[in-house]
């Protein structure tokens, strides 16, 4: 009897592996592509398969923290990747999804490099150090990291954009909504205590103060970028604590679903498709395609210089759902006071024209939540204050270092 067991065990494990290997194998086909295009995909896990390169083509690989169809952050990047493939002749693109940050991702980046990809994009903060390590091992491959603060000046570049502009606009809408509803309280579901999340939280609060000076905002830290179940719990926690509008800093539209259930309002993030339900006010979102294409072409031509690239609203790489061309206002926004909507439209127009930048969002006077003046009137923050590339490096010291929460935010940051 016992002699039968090992065979059976082997059979079971084989079956398990086969079933696992059937998981998502190819990305969805894009709509009306200028060039037929398919991204080879794979999910991290015990059954991870590193996609192959295609000889003679320019091979681009992307590493995603969530699924490519998460309706948020990862999907926005995935669509950017497809855009590259559609608009760049002789290109081949592939992605790996659900890759955890840290040591696991280092193996993924190294494997992709060994396969011979020419250009590798990592789209989550925690890929930063692993990518830096691998970039040192493969000097002929170009690596682009999003959201962090490191670059080696050679083949490992940093790239991100001023989402604070659009969070500021969304904050104006949320403040107006909360005021109109007679409950001047917002909620912010933040992920990790990194400069980006603090900066975006402050932008929301400063925006809300424009339309609703009496507004305050609660914060919940969820310690994850992508976990819709935790995102739902945190949204419920904020709504139950009295918030009228809740913002998410994480990757999925979960916040809007909870808002719908609770009869309140949510502001989603990252992808225009994330703002589906009626309870969604708006979504600040990314349009990565043209930017990725520009950098990919520079890499191919050998003209790309790795460094710190931080684009603003005039790049056209970001949007505010409901306010961009071809979009209609969500019902929760359409019913707001006309002067508030006009204010948002005017500021947006200035942003897109390059006349209102992230430094105008963070222009003094700004007080922190203890009442202390952080930025005096007439002063503006500098890039080093916003995110410090790299933090505290000589010649790049911050003056008004954003390690504080703006007035109105209920929360503390460890010093």
């Amino acid at each position, binding site marked *: *009897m016992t002699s*039968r*067991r090992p065979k*059976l*065990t082997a059979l*079971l*494990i084989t*079956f*398990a*592996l086969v*079933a*696992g*290997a*059937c*998981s*998502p194998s190819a990305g*969805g086909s894009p709509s009306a592509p200028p060039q037929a295009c398919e991204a080879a995909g794979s*999910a991290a896990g*015990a*059954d991870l398969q590193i996609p192959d390169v295609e000889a003679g083509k320019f091979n681009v690989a992307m590493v995603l923290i969530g*699924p490519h*169809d*998460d*309706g948020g952050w990862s999907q926005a990047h995935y669509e950017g990747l497809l855009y590259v493939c559609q608009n760049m002749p002789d290109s081949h693109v592939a992605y790996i999804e*659900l890759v955890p940050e840290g040591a696991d991702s280092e193996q993924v980046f190294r494997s992709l490099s060994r396969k011979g990809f020419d250009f590798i994009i990592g789209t989550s903060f925690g890929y930063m150090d692993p990518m830096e390590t691998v970039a040192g091992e493969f000097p002929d491959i170009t690596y682009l990291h999003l959201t962090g603060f490191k670059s080696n000046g050679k083949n490992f570049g940093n790239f991100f954009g001023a989402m604070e502009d659009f969070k500021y606009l969304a904050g104006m809408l949320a403040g107006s909504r909360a005021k109109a509803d007679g409950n001047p309280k917002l909620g912010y579901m933040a992920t990790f*205590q990194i400069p980006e999340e603090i900066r975006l939280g402050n932008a929301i609060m400063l925006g809300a103060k424009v339309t609703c000076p009496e507004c305050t905002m*609660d*914060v*919940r*830290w*969820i*310690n994850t970028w*992508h*976990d*819709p*179940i935790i995102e*739902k*719990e*945190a949204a*419920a*926690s904020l709504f*139950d*604590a009295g918030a009228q509008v809740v913002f998410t800093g994480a990757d*999925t539209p*979960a916040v809007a*679903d909870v808002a*719908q259930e609770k009869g309140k309002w949510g502001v989603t993030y990252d992808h225009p*498709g994330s703002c*589906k*339900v009626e309870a969604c006010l708006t979504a600040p979102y990314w349009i990565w395609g043209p930017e990725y294409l520009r950098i990919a072409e520079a890499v191919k031509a050998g003209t790309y210089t790795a460094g710190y690239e931080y684009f603003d609203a005039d790049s056209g790489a970001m949007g505010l759902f409901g306010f961009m061309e071809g979009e209609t206002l969500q019902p929760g926004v359409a019913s707001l006071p006309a002067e508030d909507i006009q204010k948002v439209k005017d500021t947006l127009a200035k942003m897109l024209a390059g006349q209102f930048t992230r430094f105008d969002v963070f222009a003094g006077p700004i007080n922190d939540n203890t009442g202390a003046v952080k930025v005096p009137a007439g002063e503006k923050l500098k890039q080093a204050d916003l995110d410090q590339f790299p933090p505290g490096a000589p010649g790049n010291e911050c003056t008004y270092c954003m390690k504080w929460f703006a007035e109105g935010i*209920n*929360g*503390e940051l*460890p010093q």
Partner: protein
Amino acid sequence: MDFVTIMAAGVATGTIYLFAAVGEIFAERSGVLNLGVTGMMLMGAVGGFATVVATGDPWLGLLVGMAAGGLLSLLHAVVTIHFQADQVVSGLALTFVGTGLARVLGEGLSKAGATSLLPKLTVPILSDIPIVGPIFLRDQSVLVYAGYLLVPAAWYWIHRTRPGLNLRAVGEYPAAADAMGVNVYRLRYLYVFMGGLLSGLAGAAITLAIQPGWFGDLTVGGRGWIAIGLVIFAQWDPLRAAVGGYLFGAIDRFLLDVQGPENFFGIRNPVYYDHTLTFFLGMLPFVLVIVVLVVGSREAVRKRIGAPAALGVPYIRGERGA
């Protein structure tokens, strides 16, 4: 932060643990350890959600979700009962199979958007009882109420009925049960299947009622394992499993709500000032499960806490020993 809100949320999400844990109690009481709870829950979750997306009927989704969990459990039953293979290995394999299948079947479902949900109910009059009313009887999903009915029913079935006596006999001393004319194989199949149905129900409860939507593996997350730990924590008793399930559900919510207030009764709230503590707090439920599993797997302790004596041991008719 408010006790009633946290507990009400805990009862809602705890219902998920409750269904899975009661299902596992049935299977383990019959002597079959099934570690594939996560796989079965994912199958229930994806089965239920795919059905509601296709037909718009969450009740039908509930049935399909249960059936999906039940069908997957039959694989474990055939392998461990008919072929007498190692239950631990088969259970782990079931986790992988369920996860892989659910990923394939769930492809594209995350884009489905809002779907119709199972209704929420408030019990008139009784929901006005202070504390108890708002926690248990106000604006809870119909499945939460199903949990209230399932738990005492399961307890009564196991402890007070003739079939329950047979169930316990099969899990304690199958040879004796066999000698008394109880069909050991049939009963084990039946209760493993029942465990599968309830795990499927737990999964469908997530996607159709309590945290609606399909999010791949994260839909269930680590909750299948917590349910297995709960069974030992509950000493194979449905009533204790319910209490444990609600508590674990409340912990999930407490970790978030505790970040809100600056002070508790005038004392500085450390979590408000240093959010890194939330990493530590978030780890605690899993630490608790590990402790329970380690302590609960010692032979002496197992006997004392009432583990079914034949748990994990395949029954081979005519061979000596259980």
